[in-house]
């Protein structure tokens, strides 16, 4: 009976052709894979495979160019927004997106990120925040939570030594050059649908020449966090989300309804992770 259903005309979901056949190198359950897939699905749905250029970072997603079947450049660590700036300015008809992790975007590449946003570059930036340096073995990231253990904060991040987790997304929302700033996740089907809609909006904004659109994906790092993928997603909900609240922060160039940007940037209480 089941075999009667598996027919081309009944297909409702399959891997997008904008992803290559290469098996991704990400750890089992890693949000990078899901994020790649929904970016690729958006490119397919908008019919822009032939006019899209991506910029990969240094970090876990350094090999992103192998997985997207679109033209791609691999940037030096943190410099993706600079590359994207020039690609877009010299080729205004291309759809340009960067794909970066938290170390790349919010530590070594902070200047490039802030200035691309401040110039209002008409690009789409996808920012995957898992609060840790995954590729180099789980060291502290700018986004590592207070009290969170990492390879370089083995007793937990302490404010006195390491400062505060950087909420760069809220920071960027305060800049007049950003048009759309949102924070999403990809750990449940509902979250994936919302994140995909946000990424689609970010590409549409670019097509409508609205300025910079920035989509943060709060994600997991089960290897770095030393948990199973399912545990990691639960831990993320309990610890990452209170510090990195999910939802739109800036829409159509205005701070989103219900968001007090001052509270988020300055006063939002930092919760300490559950031990």
């Amino acid at each position, binding site marked *: 009976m089941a075999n009667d259903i598996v027919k081309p005309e009944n297909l409702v979901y399959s891997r997008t052709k904008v992803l290559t056949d290469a098996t991704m190198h990400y750890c089992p359950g890693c949000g990078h894979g899901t994020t790649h897939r929904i970016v690729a699905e958006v490119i397919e749905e908008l019919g822009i495979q032939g006019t899209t250029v991506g910029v990969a970072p240094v970090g876990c997603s350094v090999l992103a160019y192998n997985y997207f079947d679109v033209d791609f450049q*691999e940037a030096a660590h943190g410099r993706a927004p600079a590359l994207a700036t020039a690609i877009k300015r010299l080729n205004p008809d*291309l759809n340009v997106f960067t794909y970066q992790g938290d170390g790349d975007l919010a530590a070594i590449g902070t200047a490039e990120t802030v200035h691309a946003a401040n110039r209002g570059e008409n690009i789409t930036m996808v920012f995957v925040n898992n609060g840790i340096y995954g590729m180099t073995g789980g060291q502290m990231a700018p986004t590592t939570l207070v009290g969170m253990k990492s390879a370089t904060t083995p007793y937990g991040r302490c404010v006195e030594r390491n400062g505060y987790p950087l909420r760069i997304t809220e920071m960027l929302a305060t800049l007049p050059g950003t048009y759309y700033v949102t924070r999403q996740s990809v750990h449940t089907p509902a979250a994936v649908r919302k994140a995909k809609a946000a990424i689609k909006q970010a590409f549409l904004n670019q097509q409508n020449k609205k300025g910079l659109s920035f989509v943060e994906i709060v994600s997991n790092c089960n290897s770095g966090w030393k948990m199973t993928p399912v545990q990691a997603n639960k831990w993320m909900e309990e610890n990452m989300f209170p510090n990195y609240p999910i939802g739109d922060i800036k829409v159509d160039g205005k701070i989103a309804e219900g968001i007090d940007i001052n509270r988020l940037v300055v006063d939002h209480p930092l919760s300490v992770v559950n031990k």
Partner: protein
Amino acid sequence: MAKELQLMKGNEAIARAMIASGCDGYFGYPITPQSEVMETLMAEKPWETTGMTVLQAESEMASINMVYGGAATGKKVATSSSSPGISLMQEGLTYLAGAEIPCLIVNVMRGGPGLGTIQPSQSDYFQSVKGGGHGDYQLYTLAPASVQEMYDFVFDAWDIAFKYRNPVLILSDGAIGQCMEKLYTRDFTPRWTEEERRKNAPWGTWGKPATRGHNIITSLELDSAKQEIFNHKLQAKYAEMKEKEVRYEMLNCEDADYIIVAYGSSSRIAMKAMQMAREKGIKVGLFRLITLFPFPTKQLNELSKKVKGMLCVEMSAGQMIEDVRIATECNIPVEHFGRFGGIIPTPGEVLEALENKIVK
């Protein structure tokens, strides 16, 4: 703008040559003594005429990475800076060389190390031709000695850059950048059309048509065996440059007993020193390097078999001299004379050094 005679600063010549040679984009950051490059571009507003993009970046790191992004789409993209700024660009330069991206970088050298001075110097020779950044790579390096060459070498740079898929460095200095001289401008070369870009840069990331696979610009290879093969490919490219693209100028070398070897500003001072020596009856010739990489090893070696000694004149503590000594294989004495930290030597000092160190 047709070919005409003008009076112009070296830095301005660089900017005007970029516009005239069909450059698609310039990304830079101000630093003395090269700031007139971007100032000229911004004043000229080429985006209204040729369509060239000009952007002031937030740093030299951003500038060179904007060059990477833009040039990787197969367009003619340039930046310029001076020594400390060029140091900041070294990461980008090794990525550009590793990803084989044609582009143009101009260094208007000033005295170092560190923040140093803002006066002319030639102490970035090692940085320019011995790596600068990490890995086995070379930049095709042109050393202009006049405002005219500042202008002309921009045109030459695009030809070499795209022929070899390699970054080209114009290594100038604060004297050439700041001095005003007469200059013959050239006819405009239009920017490439979309068709020309796709034809000249089939490897570029200009959007994947259904007819080809996706183009990837990267300098990363996790398989060391493949990386070694790639390095061999780069070395073969550099060997071909050494074979075909060496440029130099020889003055009065036919009957010379002694040779002054110099490039850029130093070669102009050396020319005067050569004349002064000849007036005293010392047969001196001038070997002026135009390309620093590829280095005229063969030519200097042949010359070393005919003369009694060579004096290397550089505004540095002695950098180019190492390559001259390698080239001349200890056939003859090769000595260095240099002022540095921003001091320009006088012809008299050069002549004195020649007499004391070489002629004896």
